């Protein structure tokens, strides 16, 4: 079936650097994409979302980019901090309220 996947399973960055986490999706009918952060032992926490009629959306220290031509989604984190260390999931909203999550990328921030 169609699914959302990630290019890199683990990303290590130096504190203060920018991080870019990538995600490929295959369902061209999806109209809504979301990034979640999950810390160890906790549930996923909403970071930012973007609709398919947009190509960029900015939040506090985070930016999501959507390239529908190549079905690619990315999350950029500016000035990465140790507290950003977590697993990051992209997810797509297919029909109704159902979310389909990717496998996740581990972000490790080195001090």
């Amino acid at each position, binding site marked *: 079936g169609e699914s959302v996947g990630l290019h890199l399973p683990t990303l290590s960055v130096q504190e203060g650097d920018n991080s870019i986490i990538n995600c490929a999706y295959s369902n061209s009918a999806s109209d*809504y*994409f*979301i990034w979640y952060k999950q810390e160890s*032992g*906790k*549930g*996923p*926490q*909403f970071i930012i*979302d973007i609709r398919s009629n947009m190509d960029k959306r900015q939040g506090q220290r985070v930016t999501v980019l959507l390239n529908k031509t190549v079905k690619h989604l990315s999350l950029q984190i500016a000035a990465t901090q140790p507290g950003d260390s977590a697993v990051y*999931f992209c*997810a797509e*909203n297919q029909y*109704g*309220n*159902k*979310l*389909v*999550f*990717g*496998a*996740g990328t581990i972000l490790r921030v080195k001090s």
Partner: protein
Amino acid sequence: GAGVSQSPRYKVAKRGQDVALRCDPISGHVSLFWYQQALGQGPEFLTYFQNEAQLDKSGLPSDRFFAERPEGSVSTLKIQRTQQEDSAVYLCASKPRTGGAGELFFGEGSRLTVL
């Protein structure tokens, strides 16, 4: 409470036992979801409630899985005759009537280990 509350946080069951996992959503949240997260994987959708109505149960893996939300607030996920492949973290999430389609508020999950 301030967030979604799940209990128990940890459950160890012998194969064949029945288990019940409880979710207390954020007060006033209309929508409630159950997801299953295997180790090292992303969450997978199980079922969705709007108030007391179960509108989508397409993700339930088998008829051993049953969910209910009789009064439109607390929900229970029941797994009968547990098997080892049921071992996972079961996440509950809720969403207010308004807000983005994907902005779910997740609990910390119930980790089920079937021996």
